């Protein structure tokens, strides 16, 4: 930004200990940690920090709600692999961050949130806009700091970065009292370095464990690799691929694992779990060996644990010792960084002929694929699956797609085929509606040269739609696809299947999203038929500026297949035979 003072002057602080205010120390430390972008919202208790911002080479994005700041930091981290930073004031500013912090916690995303707090003298007095944010965020952060001495600011922030990015990553919050921001101290970046990272003492990869794992792989007839988010976090894409190719083992992915193994790879089965394709879940249930790589046997991927993969021996490669035997008992636990473990394991794994098992899986696809919507003739009707699939074809799969939560998220996972890591950004663990738009803004700042698409439902989009203004103020280009079915679709689907179609509180009135975009100065168009999709998507992509498309899709469509919560993995609701789609009353 043009108004910035010479950045060189501020970077001198990094090498020469200098007297700075606490507020300046906050920025100087962030600069030292390599931060270039932060997302935040000012307020009384953080004003000294905002006042000092102009002296430092950091770009600040003003959000419209602090939840957006946390999601932007999260999206930034997911797209770049770096630590995202969010800033908020005390009290309501801090509490508004919480949903975003919990989202990052459940998906192991490294973010650092910095909040101001009231002066230390009135801490704990219920002062104006005072809240115990370190107390509140304790269960949803990896760690947090309450800093009330200026000398502690730089060490706390540096330690926060170390914690956020190490081991199993996660969010860290640093709460700084206003008097600490206003006081001054000698800033010595090097001296503020945290103690050396202490790996979890229960990490354990023994030679005997590796040998046992290799033996299980050698003897397996029906092995499946289950790959999760850990592939990305540990950068083990190559190692997983080598393991799969050398031993000819098919790979099933979790939602957050999508992109960690190329969708087009012949050994890629696709997504497992509640909305995974039947053959994927059947392969897991029939397997005699599961090799879990950086995943945690979440209830959405296992279904009922008492009937999960009973025929399979299980190898669990995982960086967090508290995940071992948590949901599923395993036979071999290799507790360590996925990439490092696989590098140790690979020399022990010989080539293997897996063709018989692969053929069996392939045969089980059979009729299912025929009933898939993408193989059906165009009825002129617009289905969400079509929209997602067309988006994938038109963008060549090269875009970063940021989804919200619900039906469209599952259709994205099924019909947008991700070849590369960090191209799907989605809230998996917490399932946070309202995530897509702000997270996409963060992703765009992380990857300004990439095409970024938001895919959101009409419900979730309205939760954080105010961030449209942020897009305009920042002058960035984001393409927005709203999958508009007039319902809270996934909840409606559960009501359809499990609550006798009692559509209580799921029909949803929305604004005209194209007009809403227009009010923000963003162009947009509505799409009602499949025939229009390609042209409007092309217009959005070539448009100079953000573009919103309101896809008016089939209202009562459902995501298939589906495993009802608590059912066994193979007990799924399949795509209906006669008609793949539940028609609306209008069509009958």
């Amino acid at each position, binding site marked *: 930004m043009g108004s910035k003072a010479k950045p060189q002057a501020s970077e001198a602080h990094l090498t020469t200990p200098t007297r700075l205010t606490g507020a300046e120390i906050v920025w100087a430390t962030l600069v030292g940690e390599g931060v270039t972008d932060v997302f935040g919202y000012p307020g009384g208790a953080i004003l000294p920090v905002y006042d000092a911002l102009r002296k430092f080479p950091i770009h600040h994005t003003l959000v419209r709600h602090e939840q957006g700041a946390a999601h932007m930091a999260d999206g930034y981290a997911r797209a770049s692999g770096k630590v995202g930073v969010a800033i908020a004031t005390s009290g309501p500013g801090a509490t508004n961050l919480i949903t975003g912090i919990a989202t990052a916690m459940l998906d192991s995303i490294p973010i650092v949130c910095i909040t101001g707090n009231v002066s230390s003298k009135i801490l704990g007095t219920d002062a104006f806009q005072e809240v115990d944010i370190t107390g509140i965020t304790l*269960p949803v952060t990896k*760690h947090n700091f*309450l800093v009330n001495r200026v000398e502690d600011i730089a060490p706390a922030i540096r330690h926060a970065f170390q914690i956020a990015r190490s081991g199993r990553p996660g969010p860290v919050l640093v709460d700084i009292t206003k008097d600490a921001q206003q006081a001054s101290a000698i800033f010595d970046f090097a001296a503020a370095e945290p103690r050396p990272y202490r790996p979890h*003492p*229960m990490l354990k990869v023994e030679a005997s464990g590796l040998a046992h794992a290799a033996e299980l792989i050698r003897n397996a007839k029906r092995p499946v690799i289950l790959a999760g988010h850990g592939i990305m976090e540990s950068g083990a894409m190559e190692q997983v691929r080598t393991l799969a190719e050398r031993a000819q083992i098919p790979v099933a992915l979790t939602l957050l694992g999508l992109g960690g193994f190329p969708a087009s790879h012949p050994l890629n089965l696709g997504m497992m779990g509640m909305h995974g394709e039947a053959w994927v879940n059947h392969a897991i249930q029939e397997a005699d060996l599961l090799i879990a790589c950086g995943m945690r046997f979440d209830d959405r991927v296992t279904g009922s644990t*008492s009937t999960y993969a009973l025929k399979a021996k299980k190898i669990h490669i995982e960086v967090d*010792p*508290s995940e071992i035997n948590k949901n599923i008992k395993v036979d071999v636990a290799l507790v360590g960084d996925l990439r490092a473990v696989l590098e140790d394991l690979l020399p022990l794994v010989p080539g293997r002929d897996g063709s018989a098992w692969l053929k069996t899986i392939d045969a089980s696809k059979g009729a299912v694929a025929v009933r898939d919507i993408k193989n059906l003739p165009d009825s002129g009707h617009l289905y969400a699956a079509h929209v997602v699939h067309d988006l994938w074809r038109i963008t060549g799969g090269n875009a970063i797609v940021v989804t919200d939560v619900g039906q469209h998220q599952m259709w994205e996972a099924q019909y947008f085929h991700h070849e590369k890591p960090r191209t799907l950004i989605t809230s998996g663990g917490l399932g946070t509606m309202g995530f897509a738009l702000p997270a996409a803004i963060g992703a765009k700042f992380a990857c300004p040269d990439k095409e970024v698409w938001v895919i959101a439902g009409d419900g979730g989009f309205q939760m954080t739609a105010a961030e449209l203004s942020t897009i305009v103020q920042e002058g960035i280009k984001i393409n927005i696809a709203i999958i508009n079915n007039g319902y809270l679709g996934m909840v409606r689907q559960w009501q359809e299947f499990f609550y006798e179609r009692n559509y209580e509180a799921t029909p949803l009135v929305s604004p005209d999203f194209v007009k809403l975009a227009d009010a923000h100065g963003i162009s947009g168009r509505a799409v009602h038929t499949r025939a229009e999709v390609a042209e409007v998507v092309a217009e959005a992509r070539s448009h100079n500026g953000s573009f919103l498309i309101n896809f008016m899709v089939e209202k009562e469509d459902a995501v298939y297949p589906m495993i009802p919560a608590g059912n066994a993995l193979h007990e799924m609701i399949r795509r209906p035979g006669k008609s793949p789609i539940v028609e609306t009353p209008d069509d009958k």
Partner: protein
Amino acid sequence: MTNSSLSKEQEAIMTHTFVAYVEDMPGVLTRVASLFRRLNINIHSLTVGRSERPGLSRLTLVCEASAEAGHRIRASLFKLENVVDVDDIAQAPSVTRELALIKVAATPQNRSQIFELVEVFRARIVDLAPESLMIEMTGVESKIEGLIQVLNEGEERILEICRSGKMTMRRGHHTSRVLRAMGAGAEDKSEAAEPAENLEAGAAVEPE
């Protein structure tokens, strides 16, 4: 979940004694306690004090949880930034003690009866006032319970009881320094299967 697996899980409930070294700074106890709160596990007893390591407190935490939960709780405790060492003593040979202060209503007329009791229980009188006296007693939980029960059954009236909660230390050479050197702590089954080693201290049977 089937009924059989449920009852199996219930059977597996056992007492866990976690000994942890934590940084001596504000908020650490909340972090430790919060972990048990989240699992809805009641903390039966918790003692915290300084340890042989500067800047580190040692805590003993007793709770009931399934046998399998012990591993995960220990792993989760280790994930806390301020926790340095964790040992799940479980059934391993160890010494456990508790301190109790008991104030009993007593006049000069009926004091002698209490003195006798105190003698039998190897406790001590640490305060004597015209209408009350204070008993200090250390020992295992059952011994303290025994004294309280006898006092309750007699004519004496207990005015106040203050108990420290349990403090536990492994027998033999399993000091914190050894634990730290071992890195992973002492959960391994191999250790539980070394009773002979634990006998070397000559105290296989806990003296009452």
